[in-house]
């Protein structure tokens, strides 16, 4: 076995982390409340919180382990202690979160694992003695303090009654809708305009201090040199992508951005960037600029950089220049409520968003279709204002049930093929001015409806195969809607 090894790229961070642990620290301790607690809250509390009632059953913490209080953390679970203050490598908690995710013992069991930076902080926190800094957490149901293992360094863990804080167990409010909450825009993006000009103020020192090692693969002396740690600073998208271990930049959040953390370390820290003597470190002023730039949302100001070797940027949807109807309509609505959505899905409907972050919905019946009735469809009315695509094809709806269609004023796509509807339904449809797609094949719609359909000027495609429409009627409709495809 070799004693000294070069670091392989993807081990880079972990190894650095280990070295960092070993090195003396000029910087202060990791702050539990701001660095560690949020991670536990996000990734651990669900299973390792206080016993709680759910669906009539009491859910006990998994493996008897509670991470929602200092006492619980120090006491450990059924298998014994989970942290060994001062020694991350002996701490089961750290071992489990840093396993390969395919490993049986990997934690958390559900959801994403800890990010590299989170692991790094956790490791460092344990190495520094696992100090809770006054935090107590939720001691409910934990019994008396003497249960904590003696001899731990966490002298501040006990002290019950010292203004016990209530653990911040994230409560899932029933109001949460399945429509994804847009991540809050970075703080600075909300109001104040950006002041840092990336190309003029940031790029120069990135080029000077970082890009030499962190850039697109290139050849030197017949060998391909790959970017260190898989991280590149020579293209905007590359910076956002981060290293093989995860992102290094979190726009709007300098504290979470590893690229700032690394350059801000003391120079003798093994984790410090750029590493010894390789390049000029950032000056205090530069660090301040970098911090501000990140805080302001990391606006690259149009700079792209060298995209070679990156996956091609995916272009916008084909309707490039003018915004699509969906985009325009999206501005007019709010997300549907969870109760309403649940009521609709209970009828067997499938609901999807038309795009990420867009409150407009597509509603369709994917299975069991022939048994879907007017009564089921009526329930969709509750979210009428959000529905822009509606697929009721091959269901049991009738003209009667579809009278409510006139309320679906955001509708752009309507599929009613192979249903029992007649010309009556077209009366309700003719008010839907945004309609682009109308599929009526296999219905008994006749020529009588065509003048009404012709009024829908936004239509791009109308399907009339196997209906009562005549060749002549279809021809007239083609005349009326010259830009639309009339399938007959």
């Amino acid at each position, binding site marked *: *076995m070799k004693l000294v090894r*070069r*670091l*392989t*790229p993807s081990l880079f961070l972990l190894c650095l982390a280990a070295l960092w642990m070993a090195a003396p620290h000029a910087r202060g301790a990791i702050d539990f409340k701001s660095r560690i607690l949020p991670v536990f809250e996000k990734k651990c509390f669900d299973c390792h919180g206080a016993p709680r009632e759910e669906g009539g059953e009491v859910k006990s913490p998994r493996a008897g382990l509670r991470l929602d209080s200092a006492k619980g953390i120090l006491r450990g679970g059924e298998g014994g202690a989970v942290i060994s203050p001062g020694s991350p490598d002996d701490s089961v908690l750290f071992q489990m979160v840093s396993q390969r995710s395919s490993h049986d013992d990997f934690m958390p069991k559900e959801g994403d694992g800890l990010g590299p930076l989170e692991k790094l902080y956790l490791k460092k926190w344990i190495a520094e003695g696992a100090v809770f800094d006054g935090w107590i957490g939720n001691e409910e149901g934990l019994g008396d303090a003497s249960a904590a293992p003696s001899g731990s360094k966490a002298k501040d863990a006990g002290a019950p009654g010292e203004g016990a804080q209530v653990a911040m167990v994230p409560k899932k409010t029933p109001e949460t809708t399945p429509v994804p909450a847009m991540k809050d825009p970075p703080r600075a993006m909300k109001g104040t305009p950006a002041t840092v000009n990336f190309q003029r103020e940031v790029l120069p020192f990135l080029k000077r201090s970082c890009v030499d090692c962190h850039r697109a693969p290139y050849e030197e002396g017949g060998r391909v040199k790959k970017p260190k740690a898989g991280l590149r600073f020579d293209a905007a998208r590359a910076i956002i992508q981060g290293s093989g271990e995860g992102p290094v930049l979190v726009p709007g959040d300098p504290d979470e951005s590893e690229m700032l953390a690394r350059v801000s370390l003391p120079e003798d820290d093994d984790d410090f960037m750029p590493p010894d003597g390789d390049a000029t470190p950032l000056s205090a002023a530069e660090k301040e600029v970098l911090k501000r730039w990140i805080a302001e949302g990391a606006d690259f100001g149009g700079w792209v950089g060298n995209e070679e070797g990156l996956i091609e940027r995916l272009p916008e949807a084909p309707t490039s220049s003018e915004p699509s109807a969906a985009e325009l309509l999206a501005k007019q609505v709010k997300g549907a409520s969870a109760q309403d959505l649940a009521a609709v899905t209970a009828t067997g409907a499938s609901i999807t968003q038309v795009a990420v972050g867009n409150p407009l919905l597509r509603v369709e019946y994917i299975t069991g279709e022939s048994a879907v009735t007017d009564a089921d469809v009526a329930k969709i009315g509750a979210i009428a204002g959000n529905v822009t695509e509606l697929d009721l094809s091959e269901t049991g709806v009738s003209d009667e049930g579809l009278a409510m269609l006139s309320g679906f004023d955001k509708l752009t796509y309507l599929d009613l093929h192979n249903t029992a509807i007649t010309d009556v339904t077209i009366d309700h449809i003719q008010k839907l001015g945004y309609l682009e797609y109308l599929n009526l094949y296999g219905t008994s719609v006749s020529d009588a409806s065509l003048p009404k359909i012709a009024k829908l000027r936004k239509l791009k495609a109308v399907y009339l195969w196997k209906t009562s429409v005549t060749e002549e009627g279809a021809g007239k409709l083609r005349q009326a809607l010259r830009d639309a495809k009339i399938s007959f």
Partner: protein
Amino acid sequence: MKTFSFTMRMLGVSLVLAGFMGFAHAEFPGREEKAPADMTLDDVKKISLQVDKFIADALRKEGKSLIGDSTDEQFVRRVYLNIVGRIPSYDEAVTFLDSDNANKRAELIDTLLNSPGYQSDMFNFWADILRAIHRPGPNSQTNAISYLNYVKRSIAENKPYDKWVAEMITASGGGWERSSGGAVGYLERDKGMPLDNLANTMQIFTGTRMECAQCHNHPHNEEIEQKDFFQMAAFTHGLKGPKERSYGNMQERRMYENAPQDVRNFVRQLRYDIFDFGVVGGGDGVIPLPDDYQYRDADPNEIVGARTMFGKSVRNARAKPIDDGRERFTEWLTTPENPRFTKVIANRLWKKVMGRGLFEPVDQLDMDVSVSHPSLLVFLEKLMVDLKYDMNAYQRILYNTRTFQFQPNPEEHTGSNYHFAGRVLSRMTAEQIWDSMLATTMPDVDERRGSHYLPFIQHRGRYVMVGKKDMYDLYEEAMNLEGRALYDWAAKTLKEFNGDGGVRAGEAMSMSMMDSGSAKGPMADDKRWAGYSSDLLRASELPSPARASHFLRKFGQSARQVIEGSTKESDVTQILSLINGHVEDYIVGSSNAVIYQDMEKAATPEEKIEVAFLTVLTRRPTDEEMQLFKSNVDTVGQGAYDDLVWTLYNTNEFMFVQ
């Protein structure tokens, strides 16, 4: 011997096995030596007890109580499934259950370990690991049969594991050369991909994952670098096919182009099946690094010498070509001093017997691997060495432990390390399901042979020259011919084939002249199996792997493309085949299935129900169950027996091994 006792003492383990140790040490001069296979049952039981002690100690330490012994019903089903790969037949089950011989468990274990069923099961086991397949190349017709038979023969002979591995890695010559006997098939499996072959070798036999290092330094495992990989690969670099040299020959090329279509096709087939199939060269001991080598410690295309990456250092330091690279590699690989070689096989077979490994995956021995019973692993490693890598004897000891014979564990085990307090419930493998169904369909199924492993010459979809000439003969005749002589011979031989006309697979069996290594024994047209479809052969007698849509593949038989690619995961198509397909087609809907014949012999409905239970579930029905099926007979009549048989196969109890 000294080393052994010393190590054991250091571990605080006392091996009170004077008799056993007597035969276990070949290097101890002047002492009479017994082969592991000749161990008396007493010897075996003493060692089994030692093994149990490790498990019991660990359980005590964890404050877990010992679990009781399995019932005879549980035991007989489990031991049949484990050793011969199928459930016991009605007769076998009843014979065992009704016997009052106090030693009947040990005796049954010995019987099974020496039965053809054991060989069948071990073949499935190894074929999955070795990715042994009938057609390694897209165009080959017959060329891996000799290798498959070599694997079967090695199991039948109970070839010591270390010798067997060494044989495969050092094998030379043509695949159909009688003397080399197909062993070259192992290297041939990855024809044209020697680096992949090396990565597979390291994984299978040393639990070292190197496939990533083929292209770059190992991202997860800092021990392994790309250079290490190439230095290992240098040992076996430079192997060639036995007749590759004639390919570039212009004259031959012209002859090929000018030959009639049928001769051309025949010569092309010879290339695939004979000239290409085999290995020559001893291993160069040197290898160039790849074009895109990107690390600082060497240049791209730089020639590096062979060097082992762990264990005793063996190296070709001066990077001058040698001709015995493979031997040096093999010696390093298979020596007991290799820190991984013995561990891997000891644990692999432990898992085969006990259901869970001491570490898993069994072929991933990373530095940070978590071993559930470290001192037991050391003990088993020594045991394997002392048994001279006799896999049968090793398993015999494990089967005789109480640990194997524990009750099933009613708890579900999750997490990595297992404490072995009770056997882990597991779904049967694809082969176990298929073979178990066969055992209830026809008599003596372990002895039935098909034609898939016979070295016949295939010509236009038929077997030709059966009884007169086989692939080995073809090899001898064709191998030394060049140019004109080859084409003349090819034309003549083709005429012979056409004149012969050939036979279909079934007929070929009865005319077979027998491969030296396999297919001894009764033929497919044996009267015992008259009336049963010729497709109803044990998994080990069907093509390896079975065709993609076959029952076996549906239930998770490996496609044998990757090491241990088999799976026990279930899906809906499997259930459909149990509900509506196979069970109905071959058992419920077939009156000659043995289960029906046995039920026929029974006089009363109660007895019939009992026969069915014993056949499918290896136990008698409870009162409640008897009542349930009895009342079904009362209401439905004769059809109730179809219900009964169908139902028993479609219970969870059938599918899960306890």
